[in-house]
């Protein structure tokens, strides 16, 4: 799949999202529930701002010393008999995974949820090689059965689908006979997938946080599929983005506490699993062989730049769950496996501006994302920084906009020009004005007046009133004359 999903242009994707009324209803309802859950969990915990500060400090320290902690992690994993592979690119990561699959002569790989394996397109690669890859997270499984429909949310990937759509997909593809009740659909998926767990040759997991001090990886789930993936197959491959690491178990506690509350409003998810190397001496289940693939894939280019904080992200989706833009256009409109505010920040960094130049503008800069982020990533500021880059370095904005902004600069930094311009504005607008409002405006007002009226500029500006009043009454005001 890779980071990019769909091949339509941004405007078309947005239009499709806006017209999908079920999706929008589902997203709005989910956002309401998730927002309430998160706020309640934070309130119950108390000291939420202290937690956020601590979370930010931990992320910052870890990223500043990332080379050290990754070295420590890799040594500890190797000491426990694990194999560590550092992959600079998606291709390198895939090549290594392919090699393990071939060595094991694996025919079936079972996965728990992992965004980074989506990012590197691991499934397609393995399937092209003739290896069956099965997603075991319920949401991911639904999407996979529905001809690889892409995820629209990083925590709840099938958020855009309703239960009758899901029932129909299972009926058509899997011979499902029962109703659209989520309980029955889930039961069916349990039975289908249990067989796969028991017969899979290799389990592939992601990694929520690695712990440097012990060479552990942690998996945070509710369904129990990640436990099955890491308990039953004889070989486990864990794939992690290189920034997903904490120094010790003490920081793991803090990050997991923030993650569970921010993602789903839970104190802890049903399962938080810390895995260290392959199964221990004399142990029976768990993998005989453990591989850890640490993926860069463009992340190091973000280090040391003004965007570094984007790497602090713990993939909780709190920003997505409060974003009013996401709520109307849905995840697919972003054209990336990382949607919402963090997606709009991260996707251009990992995939370039060329195909993602609209994303930084898909935000009203309302800062709901920044406020929700458990590690205080200033998301809306990073979106502005992208815009700045697009203007100054990429020079990708339209000529008309550049001229308008030059004009704005000239007018707004030069009072006489501003005064003349604002004085003639009512005159300039008068052909478009009806009863004090513009209903079909020229230039940039055209877009505005497609759905809104625009107030016509007043003939008497505030400054005119103020000057007259001062001259007339004179008892107040020390204003300069205009």
């Amino acid at each position: 799949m890779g980071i990019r999903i769909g091949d339509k242009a941004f405007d078309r994707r947005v239009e499709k999202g806006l017209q999908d009324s079920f999706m929008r209803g589902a997203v709005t309802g989910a956002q309401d529930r998730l927002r309430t859950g998160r706020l309640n969990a934070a309130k119950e915990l108390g000291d939420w701002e202290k937690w956020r500060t601590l979370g930010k400090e931990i992320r910052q320290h870890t990223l500043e010393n990332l080379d050290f902690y990754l070295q420590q992690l890799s040594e500890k994993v190797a000491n426990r008999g694990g194999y560590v592979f550092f992959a600079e690119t998606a291709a390198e990561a895939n090549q290594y995974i392919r090699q393990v699959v071939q060595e094991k002569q694996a025919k079936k790989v079972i996965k728990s949820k992992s965004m980074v394996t989506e990012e590197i397109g691991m499934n397609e690669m393995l399937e092209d090689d003739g290896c069956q890859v099965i997603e075991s997270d319920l949401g991911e499984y639904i999407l996979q059965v529905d001809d690889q429909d892409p995820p629209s949310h990083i925590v709840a990937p099938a958020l855009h689908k309703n239960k009758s759509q899901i029932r129909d997909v299972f009926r058509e593809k899997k011979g499902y006979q029962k109703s659209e009740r989520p309980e029955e659909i889930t039961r069916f998926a349990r039975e289908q997938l249990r067989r796969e767990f028991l017969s899979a040759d290799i389990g592939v997991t992601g990694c929520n946080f690695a712990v440097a001090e012990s060479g552990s990886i942690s998996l945070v789930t509710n369904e129990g599929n990640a436990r099955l993936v890491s308990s039953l197959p004889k070989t486990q491959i864990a794939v992690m983005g290189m920034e997903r690491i904490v120094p010790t178990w003490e920081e793991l506690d803090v990050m997991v506490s923030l993650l569970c509350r921010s993602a789903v409003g839970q104190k802890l998810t049903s399962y938080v699993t810390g895995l260290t190397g392959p199964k221990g001496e004399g142990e029976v289940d768990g993998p005989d062989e453990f591989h850890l693939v640490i993926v860069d894939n463009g992340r190091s280019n973000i280090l040391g730049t003004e965007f570094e904080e984007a790497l602090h992200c713990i993939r909780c989706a709190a920003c997505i769950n409060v974003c009013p833009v996401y709520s109307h256009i849905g995840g697919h409109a972003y054209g990336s496996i990382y949607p919402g505010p963090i997606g709009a920040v991260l996707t251009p960094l990992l995939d370039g501006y060329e195909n993602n130049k609209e994303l930084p503008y898909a935000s009203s800069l309302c800062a709901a994302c920044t406020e929700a982020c458990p590690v205080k990533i200033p998301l809306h500021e990073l979106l502005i920084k992208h815009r700045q880059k697009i203007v100054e370095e990429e020079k990708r904005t339209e000529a008309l906009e550049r001229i308008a902004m030059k004009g704005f600069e000239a007018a707004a930094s030069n009072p006489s020009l501003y005064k003349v311009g604002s004085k003639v504005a009512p005159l300039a607008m008068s052909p478009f004005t009806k009863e004090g409002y513009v209903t079909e405006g020229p230039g940039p007002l055209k877009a505005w007046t497609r759905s809104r009226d625009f107030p016509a500029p007043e003939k008497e500006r505030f400054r005119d009133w103020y000057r007259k009043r001062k001259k007339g009454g004179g008892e107040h005001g020390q204003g300069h004359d205009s």
Partner: protein
Amino acid sequence: MKVSLFVTCLADLFYPEVGKDTVELLEGLGCEVDFPAAQTCCGQPAFNSGYHKESKEVAKHMVETFEGADYVVVPSGSCATMLKEYAKLFVDDPAWQERARALGEKTYELTQFIVHVLEKEDVGAVFHARATYHTSCHMTRLLGAREEPLKLLNQVEGLQLTPLSHCYDCCGFGGTFSVKMDSISREMVDAKVNHIEETDAEVLIGADAGCLMNIGGRLKRQGKPVKVMHIAQVLNHKQEG
């Protein structure tokens, strides 16, 4: 107390009555209100669009314009925030950064100024209406002015305030966002309009002309009878009507 008014370009050009009410309100509370006429715009349209070189020039002009002021009062949470953020534009220029920081420190959004500097909550306003209040995003999240407008509105005689459901959701204005992404912006403002209608309010009150222009423009287009008012207009309303 002497205050310098930064009226904002929107109020200057499109909503002069907001400026007038702000002046009268502050005067009524014992302030001497100065209007430095060289003022223009805070520069936010350029800044938020990524034109930082351009916004720097605007910022310098505004810093100079208000250099002599004791307090700068702004009837807009968003523009007040912008003034407070100027210092970030000058990370490579310590001298200007210091001047920008000084401006930021003495800048107040109108309701914050009344509640925290003038230490008044009851401004003696009378306004008989069913109303709801729109909490603007920059004003609440970036400036932190959450309680101040409500403290003031709660003291207005005759005003019945109904809470606005999903008040935390952006109205879809976002400056250039409203024209760059107008189809998304329209859906956002429609959601806002729906929530406003649910309150059965006759009047929508806000503290940011940008949001009010957006919501008001949509209400007007749809022919909805809800009246849109800036909080300064409500607080300066003294008799029945």
